[in-house]
């Protein structure tokens, strides 16, 4: 229960009906660090990410055994407030998914549903979040225009701003740059570097180079198992497990 770990995953098994997608996952996510999850397609890393903010609840037949502690408290108990959980643990998706509303309304959505009604306060939050996502300068003159008019990279940063607006403690990012071009990707990676000062970030990525660039810790998933989890340097320079080494060196995946 040290305050270094914002999330503790304990022996998690995850099933879609009869299919077991995750097997005995145990790991601790450290506070204010960037943790990367790598592995070949279909190995369960996205599924695992979604167990952290219970987005899998939306899928019928999804079932979890084991436990996940957030700030020391179990998030899979009977009367856990899932709505609040998702406020404290934010998520950015692979494909940018802004609402068909204005840029302002997109970012203001979160604060609004969580009770902020004062116009001045909302404006402040929106501006702050957009700055935090390094998007403000590019959109400050068109906050009332539709978010769908932004480029892919801008939309993704908007989604990040939207997630930041509710002041989460953890930010889950599911391959956030995979749909973007290299320039936009670089911007997102710089952003992640800055964000970790205030947030704990867990990022799923299919690019090992990206994991090596941005993360402090890396976990390697293979067929639903967490094969190895350690400091990023260690994983990439001197992996302990042969399967990790095979993946890193490109023998498969």
């Amino acid at each position, binding site marked *: 229960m040290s305050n270094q770990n914002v999330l503790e995953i304990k022996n998690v098994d995850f099933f879609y009906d009869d299919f077991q997608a995750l097997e005995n996952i145990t790991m601790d996510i450290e506070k204010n660090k960037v943790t990367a999850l790598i592995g070949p397609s279909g190995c369960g890393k996205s599924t695992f990410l979604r167990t952290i903010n219970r987005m899998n609840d939306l899928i019928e037949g999804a079932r979890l055994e084991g436990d996940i502690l957030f700030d020391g408290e179990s998030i899979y108990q009977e009367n856990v407030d899932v709505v609040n959980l*998702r406020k404290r643990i934010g998520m950015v998706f692979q494909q940018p998914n802004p609402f068909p509303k204005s840029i302002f309304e997109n970012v203001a959505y979160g604060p609004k549903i969580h009770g902020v009604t004062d116009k001045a306060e909302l404006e402040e939050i929106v501006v702050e979040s957009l700055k935090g996502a390094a998007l403000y300068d590019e959109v400050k003159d068109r906050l009332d225009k539709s978010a769908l008019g932004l480029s892919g990279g801008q939309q993704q940063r908007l989604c990040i701003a939207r997630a930041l607006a509710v002041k989460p403690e953890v930010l889950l990012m599911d391959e956030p740059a995979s749909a973007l071009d290299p320039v936009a990707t670089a911007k997102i990676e710089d952003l992640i570097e800055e964000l970790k000062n205030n947030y704990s970030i867990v990022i799923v990525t299919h690019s090992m180079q990206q994991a090596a660039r941005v993360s402090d810790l890396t976990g390697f998933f293979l067929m639903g198992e967490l094969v190895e989890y350690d400091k990023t340097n260690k994983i990439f320079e001197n992996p302990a497990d042969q399967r990790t080494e095979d993946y890193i060196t490109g023998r498969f995946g």
Partner: protein
Amino acid sequence: MSDLKNENKKSWTSLFFDPKIRYMNSKKNKNGLVNYVLLLTTLISLITTIGIIIILLTDSFHFFEQVPVFDFLTGTNWNPLIEPNKSYGVLPLVAGTMMITLGSALIAIPVGLGSAIYLTEYASTRFSKIIKPIMEILAGVPTVVYGYFALTFITPNILKPIFPNIQTFNALSASIAVGIMILPMVISLSEDALNAVPESIRQGAYAMGSTRFEVASRVMVPSALSGILSSFILAISRAIGETMIVAVAAGMRPQLTSSFLKPIQTMTGFIVQISMGDTPVGSLSYYTIFAVGLLLFLMTLSLNIISHLILKKYREVYQ
């Protein structure tokens, strides 16, 4: 490639037949015949529309030769059959139609949208699978049976206990029945509209920590608004054109009243009434049918066009 020369010669046929396909017809004669048979059957649909317009216009014309359009549209006394004071103000019929439409919309629109939201955000797939066929059955019940149900069940068993003064033929029971009749339509079209919103947007809303109601009301419905509105308008148009339910249950009394407990007559009800009677062809009373029919046609046509325009112009485009 030699067919290209032929295509230039017969350029008018490329209006009706896709040029890319023609060059696959090697046995020209036999397939030429088939092509034209198919084209002719398609033209039947065009001829239908033209036929409707011609019939309505020419026979209404005979009516408006004798009754000024202004009197027709603004008169509040509708008495086209009974001497001595025949009167041709259509407003009581229009009012009757509006009452039924309003009453049915008040039922079908909230219940329909609410049900669609329940099906898309709250219900399990098992529940939806059971509901769908039931809704299809509800949509398939013949309108004359709905009318019968309104007259012999809704009025005596449900309405009379609440409103003792209600008359046997009344606007309320017909409104309720029409509302139920158009309900499956609202549900099905609204559901389609809601399902057309990309799943990623829905997931994004949940990931922000929204309740199901917030996702539905703040994100899904606004994102599907054009489809939902269009479904409302189409349902209203259907209610306006509904005939048998009102003919059986709402009465034959064209009167301007705001009370739903009294009998009224709708435009459609009147048309049926005349058709059942002995109105000599060519008499003014006969042509009244077509004048009312023309008005009815124009009303439903406008609504259908508006609905189509809303969809076309405001349909949300998701990359």
